C-alpha cells in the first residue's frame, strides 16, 4: 500500500481544492469583510428631532456675547462658547437631553484599546464645512494638534487635559487614533474630548491664519447654524445650515443671539418684558420674578466655578497650615451665600465640586467643621489653632486684594468682619480692577486675595493640577503639599473608579487640614425661558460650556 494520496473519487481534485480553498478563505475573511461593512454602516446621531417638534421660527437668546476674540479654543469664557457653539461640532459631545451622557458627534463610534492607551474615532462620511469643503480626519488632527501642542503665542486652557496625548495618527480619511503615553481614566479622557470647547476646525483655516483665529470672526464650522451677521456687543445672527449632516436638524430657522452681560438688570428686564425668549445667567432678583410668571420656566443648575480667596504662602503667618485652617474654620459659609443672594446664586462646597460623585456628599459636608450653620464649634477650634500657632492675639494689617466685582466686594466686607470677630485677624481691603487683580496675584503682591476660578471638567484630575498643583497656573497661594501632590498623581493614573473615589476623599482630608485656598462657595447658573421654547432642559447640565448648540431646540409658536 502506498502512502501516496490517490487521485479520482475520494481524491482531492484541482477543482475541489480550489473550491475548498475558496470556502476556507471566505470563512476566514468573511467576518472581517462583514465587520468592515458593519463599520461602514454609520449609526445616526442619538440627537434626533422631537417627533412633536414644529419647524421654523427665530429663537431670541440672550447671553454674554462680546468675546475678546473669536478663537474658541483659546477662550475660557461664555462670551465665545455662548454665541459660537451653534456653528460648530465636536468629535463627541454631551447629550443635550441631560448634559451628562457622552454620545457620538462627528465621530459616530469610538474604540478604546484594552490598555487604555489608544483612542480610535470613526468619523462620519459626507460631512461638509459651511464653505463646502469635506470634513476629514486631517481636520481633526489639525484641530487636536493645536489643542494639545499650541503654537507660540497661542494659549489654550484645555491643553492640560491632553498632556498624555502623544501621536495623533490619521489612519484613513475617516478614522483617527490618539495614542496616549500613559493611560488615563476613561471618564476623564472621554470628558475631555466631549468638552464643548474642542470644536473641530478646518485644517486649511488654521494654516491660512498661522494657527491663530483670534481675529477671524467667521471661520467655517460643520455645525447646525451658519453665520449671517454680527454687530459687536449687540447681536449675532445665524441661520439654519440646510446641509447639516444630522438630517432633520436644526429645527429653528434662525438664531438671534443678543449680547447681555451676566447678572445684569438689562438682561433681566429684556427677558421680563418679553424681548427675548431665553435668558442665560440671570440675576437672582429677575430670575425669582421670572419664576413667578405662569408661562416661564426658571431653571437652576451647577456651574464649574469655585469662589475662593487665596493666602500668600510667602507671608510668615499664612505659611502655617494651622493659621490657614483657622481662617478656613472662621468662615460662616451659610451667611456668605446669603450675603450675595440678590447678586449671584451660590451653594456651599469644599475643595472638590460638591455635586460631583467623588466628593463628600453635601449632607455629610454640612456636618463638618467650617460648613455648619452653628459656628461655635468651628470658631472654638479656629481659636485653638491660632493659639497653638502662636497667634492667639490675632494678626494685624493683612493686605486683602479684592477683585472689582460686586460679589467679591460684598464678600470681602463680610469676610473681613468674620476674621476680626472670630480670630482677631485685621485686614485692609484693596479693591482693584480685574486685570490688576491677576497682575497682583501672579506677582504675589497680596496677603489675601479674593476671586473665582473655573475648570473645564468636573473630574478632580482636571483642577487638582491647575488649582492645587505645586506649579498649577491658578495656585495663586504658591501652596505645596507633597503628600497631596503624590496622591493627585495617583488619582490621575488610577483607572478603577472606586479606588479613585477613596483617593479623592483622602485628598479632601489633606486639603481640609492644609488649605491651599479658602473655598467660599460654588456658583450656580440661573436660566429662564418662555415655555414656547422646547427641547432644552438645563436643570441637569454641568456648566454652560458643553451644551449650547441649540440643534434640537424648537419653538411651539413662532
Amino acid at each position, binding site marked *: 500500500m502506498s502512502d501516496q494520496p490517490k487521485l479520482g473519487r475520494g481524491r482531492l481534485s484541482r477543482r475541489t481544492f480550489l473550491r475548498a480553498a475558496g470556502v476556507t478563505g471566505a470563512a476566514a475573511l468573511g467576518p472581517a469583510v462583514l465587520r468592515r461593512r458593519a463599520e461602514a454602516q454609520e449609526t445616526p446621531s442619538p440627537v434626533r428631532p422631537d417627533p412633536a417638534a414644529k419647524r421654523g421660527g427665530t429663537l431670541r437668546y440672550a447671553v454674554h456675547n462680546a468675546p475678546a476674540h473669536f478663537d474658541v479654543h483659546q477662550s475660557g469664557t461664555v462670551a465665545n462658547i455662548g454665541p459660537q457653539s451653534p456653528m460648530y461640532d465636536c468629535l463627541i459631545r454631551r447629550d443635550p437631553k441631560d448634559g451628562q451622557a457622552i454620545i457620538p458627534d462627528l465621530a459616530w463610534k469610538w474604540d478604546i484599546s484594552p490598555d487604555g492607551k489608544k483612542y480610535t474615532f470613526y468619523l462620519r462620511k459626507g460631512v461638509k464645512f459651511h464653505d463646502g469643503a469635506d470634513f476629514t480626519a486631517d481636520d481633526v488632527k489639525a484641530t487636536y494638534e493645536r489643542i494639545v501642542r499650541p503654537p507660540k503665542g497661542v494659549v489654550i486652557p484645555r491643553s492640560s487635559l491632553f498632556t498624555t496625548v502623544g501621536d495623533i495618527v490619521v489612519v484613513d480619511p475617516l478614522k483617527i487614533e490618539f495614542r496616549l503615553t500613559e493611560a488615563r481614566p476613561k471618564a476623564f479622557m472621554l470628558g475631555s474630548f466631549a468638552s464643548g470647547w474642542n470644536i473641530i476646525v478646518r485644517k486649511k483655516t488654521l494654516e491660512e491664519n498661522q494657527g491663530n483665529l483670534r*481675529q477671524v470672526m467667521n471661520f467655517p464650522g460643520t455645525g447646525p447654524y451658519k453665520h449671517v451677521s454680527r454687530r459687536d456687543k449687540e447681536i449675532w445672527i445665524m441661520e439654519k445650515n440646510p446641509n447639516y449632516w444630522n438630517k432633520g436638524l436644526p429645527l429653528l430657522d434662525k438664531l438671534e443671539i443678543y449680547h447681555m452681560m451676566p447678572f445684569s438688570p438689562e438682561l433681566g428686564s429684556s427677558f421680563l418684558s418679553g424681548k427675548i425668549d431665553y435668558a442665560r445667567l440671570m440675576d437672582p432678583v429677575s430670575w425669582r420674578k421670572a419664576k413667578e410668571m405662569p408661562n416661564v420656566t426658571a431653571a437652576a443648575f451647577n456651574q464649574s466655578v469655585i469662589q475662593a480667596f487665596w493666602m500668600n504662602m510667602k507671608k510668615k503667618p499664612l505659611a502655617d497650615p494651622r493659621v490657614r485652617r483657622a481662617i478656613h474654620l472662621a468662615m460662616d459659609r451659610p451667611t456668605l451665600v446669603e450675603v450675595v443672594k440678590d447678586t449671584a446664586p451660590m451653594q456651599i462646597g469644599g475643595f472638590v465640586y460638591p455635586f460631583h460623585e467623588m466628593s463628600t456628599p453635601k449632607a455629610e459636608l454640612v456636618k463638618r467643621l467650617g460648613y455648619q450653620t452653628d459656628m461655635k464649634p468651628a470658631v472654638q477650634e479656629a481659636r485653638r489653632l491660632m493659639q497653638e500657632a502662636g497667634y492667639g492675639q490675632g494678626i494685624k494689617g493683612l493686605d486683602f486684594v479684592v477683585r472689582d466685582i460686586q460679589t467679591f466686594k460684598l464678600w470681602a466686607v463680610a469676610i473681613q468682619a468674620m476674621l476680626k470677630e472670630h480670630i482677631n485677624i485685621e485686614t485692609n481691603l484693596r479693591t482693584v480692577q480685574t486685570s490688576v487683580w*491677576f497682575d497682583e496675584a501672579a506677582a504675589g503682591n497680596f496677603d489675601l486675595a479674593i476671586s473665582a476660578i473655573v475648570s473645564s471638567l468636573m473630574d478632580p484630575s482636571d483642577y487638582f493640577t491647575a488649582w492645587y498643583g505645586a506649579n498649577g497656573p491658578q495656585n495663586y497661594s504658591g501652596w505645596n503639599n507633597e503628600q497631596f501632590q503624590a496622591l493627585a498623581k495617583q488619582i490621575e493614573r488610577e483607572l478603577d473608579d472606586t479606588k479613585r473615589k477613596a483617593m479623592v476623599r483622602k485628598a479632601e482630608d489633606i486639603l481640609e487640614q492644609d488649605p491651599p485656598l479658602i473655598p467660599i462657595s460654588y456658583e450656580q447658573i440661573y436660566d429662564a425661558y418662555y415655555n414656547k421654547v422646547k427641547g432644552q432642559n438645563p436643570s441637569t447640565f454641568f456648566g454652560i460650556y458643553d451644551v449650547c448648540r441649540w440643534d434640537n431646540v424648537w419653538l411651539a409658536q413662532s
Partner: protein
Amino acid sequence: MRKYLARRALFALGTLVGVSLIIFIVLRILPGDPLVAILGVEGHARMTPADRVRIMQDLGLSDPLPVQYVHWLRDIATGKLGKSFFRGDTVAELILHRGPISAEIGLLALIVSWLVGLPVGIVSAIKPNSWADNVARSLAILFIAIPGFWLSMLIVLALLFWFGYKAPLIIVHFWESPWQNLQIVIGPAIVLGLAQGAYIARMSRSCLLEVIGEDYVRTARAKGAQERHVVLGHALPNALLPVITISGVLLGFVLGGSVAVEQAFGVPGLGRSLVTALIERDIIVVQNLVLLYAVIFVLVNFFVDLSYAWLDPRIRYA
C-alpha cells in the same frame, strides 16, 4: 476776523495735541494687563513668557512709546483710528455705527434742556420768590442733585414693571426706523436734558433778573411796551449770552453724563463703548474715544465763541 479764527484754531489744535498726549501717557501707565481680557482668566494664567512677548508684538505694544504715539497719529491721519485689541474691529467703524446714536442723545438732551430750562428761568425771573419760582428752583436743585444713572434706572424699572416696556435691544438708526430710534434715544436724552435744563433755568433766571433791572428795560416799560415784549424782545436776548456760554460747557457734561446714562438705559452708544473699553483695557479704543469727545468739546466752544458776535453786534473780534 480771519486772524481771530486762525488763532482760535491754533489754540484748539494745541489743546487737542495736549489731550492726546495726556490720554496716551495715562493709559500706558495705568495698572492692569489687557491680556487678561484678551486671553481670559484661564488663558492668562497659562500664558508663558514667550507667549506674552509674541502677543504684545502682535498688538503693537512692544514698540517704544514715541513710536506707538506716532503710529496713533498716523492712524488718525488715515481716518482708521487704529484697531481694537479685541476682535480686530477698527475704531472708525465703531464710531460710525454708534456715534449717530450718541450724537442724537446729545443733541436731543440740549434741546430738552433749553425747552425746559428757559421757560422755567423766565417764569422764575418774572415773578421772583413767588410759589412758581420756589417750585421751579426746588425742582432745578433736585434735578442737579439726582445722579443721572440713578434716575435712568428708576425710569427703566418703572416702564418695565408698570407697562412691561423695554426699548429696542439693538441700535436702530433714525433712517432705518424713526419710531424705534426715538424709543432708544428719548430716555437718555430726557434724563441728561433735565439735569442740564436745571442749570439753564438757574442761569437764565439770574441773568434775566439782572437785565430786567437795567435802564433800557425801564425805558421800554416807560414807553408803554407790553410786558411780554419787554421781557422777550428786550431783556431776554441780552440775558441769553451767558446761557449760551454755559450751554457749551454743559455739552461737556452731557458727553460725560452719557457714559453712565447710556449704561443704565442699555443704549449701545459711544459712552457705553468707552466704559467697556476701559474695563477691558482696550487702550486703542479708549484713547480715540476720549480724543473724539475732546474734539467735540473744543469745536462746540469754538462755535459758541463765534456765535457771540451774531447775538451781540457790539462784540467784535480783534
